[in-house]
């Protein structure tokens, strides 16, 4: 058993020791085989990664799976991470890639997303028209073309500044602003269509 794998069960305690280290320092230590360093990175970023995944998948269970996949993919690709961008930027990019690949796979297979009963019940309980509409708008984001969905989700998740967003998306800031504008227009069209259909069925 490798030293890294053997150390993993106790990494939670070790992770606490790395609280003051920066992401770059933790990545360097993780590349050298420090299990606690990678655990610290997971602890530090798991909430944002999970929420980012949720905003794409709109389902708690699927978001957990995608968050797990994102961290596993990050672990596999860690050796190739050169530090050109911050670790969080790179991790968000990996998370987006994992979620969008999964959504694309489901679209190609024609999988229909059956809203789980507990989610439906939550919507009914909140049952306030505004809450329903807000959730509908958020779901419509996942129907946007890939890069528009990505840019809107990342922007509103933590109000990431355009400069950092440009690094995540790998595009100049000017292009990013154009994408944001087009994404909003595209989203409005989808929301108008959904709201129109909703009123027809009501």
């Amino acid at each position, binding site marked *: *058993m*490798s030293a*890294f*794998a053997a150390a*993993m*069960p106790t*990494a*939670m305690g070790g992770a606490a020791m790395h609280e003051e280290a920066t992401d770059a320092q933790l990545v360097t230590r993780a590349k050298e085989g420090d*299990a606690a360093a*990678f*655990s610290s990175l*997971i*602890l530090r970023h*798991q*909430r*944002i990664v*999970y*929420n980012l995944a*949720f*905003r794409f998948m709109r389902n*708690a269970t699927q978001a*957990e799976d995608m*968050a*797990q996949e994102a*961290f*596993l993919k990050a*672990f*596999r690709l860690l050796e190739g991470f050169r530090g050109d961008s911050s670790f969080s930027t790179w991790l968000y990019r990996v998370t987006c890639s994992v979620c969008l690949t999964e959504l694309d796979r489901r679209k190609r297979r024609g999988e229909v997303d059956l809203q789980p009963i507990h989610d439906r019940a939550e919507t009914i309980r909140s049952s306030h028209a505004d809450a329903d*509409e*807000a*959730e509908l*708008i*958020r779901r419509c*984001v996942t129907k946007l073309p890939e890069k528009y969905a990505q840019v*809107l989700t990342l922007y*509103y998740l933590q*109000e990431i500044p355009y400069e950092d967003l440009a690094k995540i998306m790998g595009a100049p800031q000017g292009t990013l602003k154009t994408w944001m504008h087009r994404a*909003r227009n595209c*989203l*409005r069209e989808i*929301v*108008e269509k959904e709201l129109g259909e909703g009123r027809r069925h009501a």
Partner: protein
Amino acid sequence: MLDKDLDTRMEQALRDEPLRPVPAGLFMRIQRHVRLLAMAQQERQAFRARATLAVACALALILAAGIQLWRTAPLDWAGRRFPGAWGYVDYLRLDWTNTNAGVTLALVAVMASIACAILVALAVPAIAARGRKS
């Protein structure tokens, strides 16, 4: 007006979505999978190292055998020791690539070396594991 109202509502819906708490047990589940991944990567690297070593040994063996054959000319030696051997040696020497026997000999040598290399690569971890247990 309606458009602006919808824009405002869209902006509000996206901006006001709260951050959800992390589900219980997510961290431990991720850790467990990362641990398995680390073990698999370790095994893959170890196998690659063993296979490379085995192939290198096999090639070294072939090279050594080739040099020895070239130096000692065992066919000539066999021709002197065994009746009828000279005739067979001449048959092989005519143009060994065109004779079935020559090609067969060469193919057998190559396949035997590859088989040995694979067996060594597969056997070494089993022997090492047995050694660790004892």
